[in-house]
């Protein structure tokens, strides 16, 4: 009796918690849809962006939608797929390549 009550209470609690999370997620999504999506869409429009900036290591991951036709794992755009080979084969070390640096304000 006590055990089924405890079990029922646990189920009730966790389903309520989950429902609450999903509901608050929905609310959050609504406000985002109202403010943040339009702003980003505007940004995309103005800068003419085509891709999400998620993987910056290679052209076909940085701009998957713009990648060359015979990029790795992409025979043609309709068959786009990528495999985590990039995370298995590490990037090589280029000799004498440029690098990015910054100069703090006021420093020579």
């Amino acid at each position: 009796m006590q055990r089924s009550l405890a079990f029922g209470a646990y189920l009730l609690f966790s389903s309520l918690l989950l429902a609450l999370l999903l509901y608050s997620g929905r609310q959050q999504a609504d406000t985002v849809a109202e403010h943040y999506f339009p702003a980003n869409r505007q940004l995309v429009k103005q800068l003419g962006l085509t891709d999400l900036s998620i993987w910056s290591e290679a052209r076909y991951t940085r701009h998957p939608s713009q990648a060359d036709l015979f990029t790795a794992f992409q025979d043609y755009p309709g068959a786009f797929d990528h495999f985590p080979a990039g995370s298995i084969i590490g990037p090589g070390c280029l000799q004498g390549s440029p690098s990015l640096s910054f100069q703090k304000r006021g420093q020579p």
Partner: protein
Amino acid sequence: MSARLKILEHALASMARRKQKNFAIIAVYTLTVATLASILFLTQALRNEAANVLLGAPDLVVQRLLAGHHDLIPKQYAEQIAKLPGVGKVTPRVWGYYYDSLKKVNFTLLGVNDASEPPLLAGHLPTSGRQCALGRGIADTYGVEIGDSLVLVDSKNRTLLYEITGLFSHQSSLLTNDLILLPEAELRRFFALPDSQASDLAVQVYNEQEVSTLAKKIKHQLPDTRPIGKMEILHTYDTVFNWRSGIMLTIFSSALIAFCILAWDKATGISAEEKREIGILKAIGWETSDVLLLKFWEGLAVSLSSFLLGTIIAYLHIFFFGAGVLGPVIQGWSVLFPKFDLTPAIDLYQIFALAGLTIIPYIACTVIPSWKNAVTDPDSVMRS
């Protein structure tokens, strides 16, 4: 209390007896569900983000192909395309990559013409030659702010300084994380691009329905080009973040295999102890259906509680802790990986599918192996 509840009570009591074993099962199960649900939440959120945000992308991007490579496109192509009926503005875009061999990051350099203030930018866009605007990821990685200067080395090994005049807010990270904006003229100078050429052309199409027709026309008129429609861009992201795509499928399938091992162990490993218990219960007057109900409750208790717990963990993981565990897995070698500040996009259908695909097989794996024992005559109990 009805017979069913009493049998549930016994199911829970008998699970409490094998605490360690059941905790282990629940832990593995929860972890599996959490992994699967995390993938579903993450991919769904990213797809939703891409679908909403990239709606602003150019209707058509026209690239030129040379020997199969993306090559610079002559600006006169723009004039030709602009003449096609239904085409609005054709904007030549100038962009390229810049590799930092120390941090092993590939940046995207983009030329801007339009100085009107875009949203989600602190400061302003570069206007004069020696200015730039940066994405939040770069600023965070290198610890710089507005007023500092960016140092780039061009292809002739000259060092050039650009003052940072604008930083994108983190709310746009998913788009601008590794972006470096320079005035277009300056970017041309930096890359030593001839004025008569561009990286590609962004084509505005008045009627959405005509995009594919126009793409065909362009391809026909300019056979060395490759038009990419907005729908294709959106489709790309739909595919990349589909759970069937490579990375996701890898994680997905390993989690699923873990689950199958768990279920398989359950399905095959009904212990002598369990068999004896079923015999005893039947001998003292339990019906076959009571025994099966008992096993059903056991399966349900494990799977339902693990499912709920796993889904809650997944939700918190993705939307409260920025996919802290799964993020690095899909990050690969990407150094400038955006902090996922994702908007919850939940597909209830997916959650129910996940529930169905984990709870039902698990219960079946608990109930079915007991079946054979539950239907045999209990007289063996008298002899054991």
